[in-house]
């Protein structure tokens, strides 16, 4: 008998008023898989993740984690799951250690094991020197690391990471992925991560491209590229007339706001023909090999944009203000 998949999602739908956030979503995540949900902001990734970690009820559909129906038994399902939310969820008036210990207690981790895990995890995310510092004194990258450490204090076999690297600098982002990699080598862990940074998805086992509440494609990065990837020519013409000509000649183009034209290319032959015809009239040309970026463009008809996470920014701004009622 093969073990149950780590996660089984069956026909999950969720709507907010008249907006459909998720429309009949179904997929399985295998054990120990690194599974990515890729989509632009507002695609429904976070809604899906909230349903998976049982703090949101779907309108219809089933979610099984390790074979257990977690919609019917949310508290039992939560024991196996570690979550890192998109919005920070640490108590910043407590120290790093106190936050982790709190987590261990509310997940019923026995004392010895709790202390051992706290030490291990703090070491893993390289915050040993910050152990007794109040969380409010940490940088946002460090807070993220504390949250990842926290999600693994109990026996979580599934780790949900909702945009774990959003708003962080390149170095911190790199580190977070290192930790995730190290953790997966140390213990049996299934990781589901949402992101809208395409380059981060390359290392994942499987990618689920999601937009407007629907799954557009789901496969390994290599297979996605083979099936939907395209060579892209990114062109900046010297004159508007040239631009109009290119758009007329190649029907399937996308024009970006900064006047860059993206031409979908069928291969090197097309690129060469393009060059010989327009070579002298363009300011810049780059040939982009099939990438997940182009997969995304092909599937959704638009590029993923890095929009500011509005709610998160507001929350952070409020936190900095403090104030008498904020304790």
């Amino acid at each position, binding site marked *: 008998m093969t073990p149950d998949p780590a996660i089984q999602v069956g026909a999950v739908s969720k709507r907010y008023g008249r907006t459909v956030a998720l429309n009949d979503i179904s997929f399985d995540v295998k054990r120990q898989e690194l599974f990515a949900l890729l989509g632009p902001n507002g695609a429904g990734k976070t809604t899906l993740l909230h349903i998976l970690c049982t703090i949101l009820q779907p309108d219809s559909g089933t979610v099984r984690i390790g074979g257990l129906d977690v919609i019917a038994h949310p*508290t039992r399902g939560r024991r196996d*799951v570690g979550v890192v939310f998109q919005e920070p969820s640490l*108590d910043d008036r407590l120290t790093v250690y106190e936050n982790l210990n709190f987590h261990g207690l509310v*997940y019923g981790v*026995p004392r010895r094991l709790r202390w051992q895990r706290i030490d291990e995890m703090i070491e893993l995310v390289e915050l040993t020197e910050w152990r007794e510092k109040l969380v409010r004194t940490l940088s946002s990258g460090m807070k993220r690391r504390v949250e990842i450490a*926290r999600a693994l204090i109990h026996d979580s076999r599934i780790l949900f990471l909702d945009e774990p690297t959003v708003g962080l600098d390149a170095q911190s982002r790199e580190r977070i992925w290192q930790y995730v990699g190290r953790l997966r080598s140390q213990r049996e862990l299934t990781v589901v991560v949402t992101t809208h940074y395409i380059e981060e998805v390359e290392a994942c086992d499987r990618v689920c491209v999601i937009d407007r509440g629907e799954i557009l494609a789901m496969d390994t990065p290599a297979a996605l590229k083979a099936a939907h990837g395209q060579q892209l020519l990114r062109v900046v013409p010297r004159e508007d007339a040239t631009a109009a000509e290119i758009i007329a000649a190649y029907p399937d183009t996308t024009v970006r706001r900064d006047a860059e034209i993206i031409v979908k290319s069928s291969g090197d032959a097309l690129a060469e023909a393009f060059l010989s015809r327009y070579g002298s009239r363009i300011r810049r040309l780059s040939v982009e090999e099939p990438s997940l970026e182009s997969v995304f463009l092909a599937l959704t008809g638009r590029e993923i944009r890095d929009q500011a996470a509005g709610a998160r920014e507001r*929350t952070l701004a409020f936190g900095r203000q403090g104030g008498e*009622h904020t*304790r």
Partner: protein
Amino acid sequence: MKNVAIVPDDRLGRAIRLQVGGLYAIWFREVKRAVRDRGQLLGGVSRPLLWVLVMGIGLNPYFRGEIYGEVRFVVPYTYLQFIFPAVIALNIMYTSVQSAVSVIWDRQFGFLREVLVSPLPRATILLGKVLGGATVALFHGCLVLMLAQFADLSLSLGDIAWGLLLMALLAFGLTSLGIVIAGHIRSFEGFGVFSNAVILPLYFTSSSVFPLDPSLTGAQTSVIYPEWLVFLVRINPMTYAVDALRGAFIHFHQFEPWMGPAVLVGMVVVFFALALRGFSKA
């Protein structure tokens, strides 16, 4: 390296450890945050000082009718003694309702999610929060109690124990009320305004600063005060809470002695049930 004891996988033990540990963690967090909040402590100390030492001593001579030149009735208590239990109630009321701010805080800053995805049932989470807030409020009530000697109270150990029990019930009920209120309010600013709009009217109409009957005998009530005021005092549950505390600390009741404790228990049950209903939906 230490050996980690292998804990037998018994379900009951695990469930108990989860519930007790979780309750303790949530309670302890509330207490710890309160201890680290100097502003709240300052309020908890200055409020009783003002009410007991300034207002209590200042109005003391007027209480017994002595300023009329003739003593029309003899009151066996000083004004200080009379308002002292009410100030305890006031301090508990402020702290309890304020402690509910932490619910808004947690929601705003995402910490609530961390608790909500944990395997703890909502009831345990709420109980931990209420117990934590109530502990802090009880402590603030005890801050007032330390001024007892200024009010010439002679308290037996039994009085103190009974008084503390009543204070704990009051703190628990009011913290639950605070959480009910917090459930309907989304911003810190709104809560500040609203809590003052709840606390002060409840306090002033609880027969805290004046007795329903100046002679304390119950004979002249409707003669002295307009009926609407008497009505407000009588429907205010805080009236009975204050009455219960008076019973404990100065052995004086305006109402039947059983009414105070009964209303307190009623507040605990009703407000906690309401808070639980709201919290389960959150």
